[in-house]
């Protein structure tokens, strides 16, 4: 494995030297953010190659309005909140799910199926599934919606916070002040949607898109392929994650998502409103839609003063450039979601980086 890494490193070094200028490669998956930090990948890259962390952390890009809505629902006696672990510490106006855990009925689940089981086991309560995640996770939610419909299980509803990666990437590239030269594309999202889904970005924006997995060799070889393309003046679509990714992706999973959800306009923290970038339950399943059932608006909430998560998410600043980083905003007392989520750039920087305090 080390041989492959040294070889790839050699190519990266040579390419970056030829290019001379600053190269910015953005990854758009929180799992890439964490793996890059955990493996110390930045420390073995040339000085003029910068890795940007993009809006790939589903918890981080969840709008404040959604978070506050979840917290309000948590106060209800007749509900059980079923959530993936990531969301539990995100702060809202009124504490977090974690601070409410003692009094409220909040359960951390590992699978959407657990939420369905909770509904079956607690017929007198309504289970609200906090369905946050990208295209990798949406199919799991869709399966449960179908199962609930087929099994006539009425006491479960979905608060869909599912988002789509490609529209966000396009939105970033449409900003005048962006500095992105290429994308390291998410491996497991691609397992579902197929690497072909990124073809439009290559064509329309002339940026290399390389799909890679999360093992360190995958990431380094992915960066190597990008650097090779950039130094040859090319912009191509490629996947090096052949173990699990195909061009068309998982058709069965795409079908189930299509059956239950449709793309809708939605708010992303830091990026604002992005067209057709979130998943909304289709009318035929609207009885499972928590937004409708509980009269929750999908308008954006208030951002927290001083919090620059938005700019961090767009790769415009490093976490250390935020005034709150390491002082008012720490993992023990986070202000913004980028510090709370284990996949947030700020949390990763704080945990694995050297300059954790200004």
């Amino acid at each position, binding site marked *: 494995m080390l041989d492959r890494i040294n070889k790839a490193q050699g190519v990266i070094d040579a390419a970056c030297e030829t290019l001379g200028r600053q190269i910015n490669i953005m990854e758009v998956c929180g799992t890439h953010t964490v793996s890059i930090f955990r*493996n110390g990948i930045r420390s*073995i890259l040339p000085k003029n190659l910068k890795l940007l962390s993009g809006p790939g952390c589903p918890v981080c890009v969840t709008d404040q309005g959604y978070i506050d809505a979840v917290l309000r629902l948590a106060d209800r006696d007749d509900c059980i909140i079923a959530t993936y672990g990531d969301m539990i510490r995100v702060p809202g106006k009124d504490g977090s799910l974690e601070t409410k855990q003692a009094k409220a009925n909040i359960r951390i689940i590992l699978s959407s199926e657990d939420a369905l089981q909770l509904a079956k086991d607690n017929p007198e309560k309504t289970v609200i599934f906090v369905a946050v995640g990208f295209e990798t996770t949406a199919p799991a939610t869709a399966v449960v919606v179908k199962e609930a419909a087929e099994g006539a299980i009425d006491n479960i509803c979905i608060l869909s916070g599912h988002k789509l990666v490609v529209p966000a990437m396009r939105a970033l590239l449409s900003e005048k002040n962006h500095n992105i030269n290429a994308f390291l594309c998410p491996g497991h999202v691609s397992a579902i949607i197929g690497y072909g889904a990124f073809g439009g970005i290559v064509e329309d924006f002339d940026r290399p898109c390389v799909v890679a997995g999360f093992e*360190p060799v995958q990431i380094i070889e992915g960066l190597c392929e990008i650097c090779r393309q950039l130094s040859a003046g090319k912009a191509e679509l490629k996947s090096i994650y052949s173990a699990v990714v195909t061009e068309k992706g998982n058709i069965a999973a795409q079908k189930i998502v299509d059956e239950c959800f449709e793309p809708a306009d939605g708010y992303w923290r830091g990026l604002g409103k992005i067209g057709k970038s979130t998943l909304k339950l289709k009318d035929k399943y609207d009885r499972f839609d928590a937004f409708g059932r509980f009269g929750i608006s999908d308008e954006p909430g208030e951002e927290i003063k001083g919090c620059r998560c938005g700019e961090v998410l767009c790769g415009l600043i490093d976490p250390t450039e935020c005034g709150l980083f390491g002082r008012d905003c720490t993992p023990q007392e986070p202000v913004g979601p980028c510090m709370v989520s284990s996949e947030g750039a700020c949390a990763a920087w704080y*945990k*694995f980086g*050297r300059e954790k305090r200004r």
Partner: protein
Amino acid sequence: MDDLIRQHILPSLKNDALDELGDSARLKLASGSLCFTTDSYVVKPLFFNGGDIGKLAVCGTVNDLAVAGSKPVALALSLIIEDGLEMELLDKILASIGQTARKTGIDIVTGDTKTVETGAADRIFINTAGIGVRPAGVDLGFEKIAVGDKIIINGTIGDHGMTIISQREEMKFQSQLKSDCASLAGLIRELLENTDGIKFMRDPTRGGLAATLNEIARSTAMSVKIRETDIPVRPAVQTAADMLGFDVLTIANEGKFVAVVSPEFADDCLRICRNNKLGKDAKIIGEVVETLDVPLVEIETQIGGKRIVQMPYGRELPRIC
């Protein structure tokens, strides 16, 4: 209560000092400096693959005494029992305590039991205090540590914590994971009697290896460098941690010690460890280095990169020991 003591506790923990049933135990101690420790055990579930709360209570306390360089001599045992705890279960735990104590060569010389109403405790909580005698010439402490010292661990990390996690209701999964819960007194005595150069020892329980190494950095104002490829981890433990999103460096161990050793004695120590059942996977995982700006623990990753190992923070998994 008298019944509980005479019919359930004494039979399992029998020894001269305890049999007196005095308010305090009277001990005759060899001369030397004393080490004194206390700990509480609230582990959930009570029984797990590789141990139980009783075994944990004895080993945990014995290990705290052993890593301080002392020979564990006596334990005090205090039980807080929730009303309604099945007698069968209590007997099992007491038997385990007695067995573990005998195997380790330590006596439970005094104790206390309290019963609280249902709901006021979760089945059983155990508190211990332990006394050890440190022989002359054995002097371990942070102040002894110097730049260049090697860091040794006696075996694989993460086994205890991941085993507990695998048996928790919320995450239950079938596995061959096994807690490493064990008394290190014998192995540590072998080391201290047969080699010089051991400067400091600690057992990486809550917070795992990451916590212990950070404590060393903080207390010495020196830095620590370790190598990922040298840290022994069972593949099953690593995979379980990956599956659930945990970092093995922060997972609790109950049969491991970290030793800081003079470089010239490091190989000797390894050899002694590896000849012992509890040290066969021992490894030198890094060394103490100069601090550049702030004392840090840095790891060289499997691909040759560098990153910081922070003191674990945030949501720790509760009731792991």
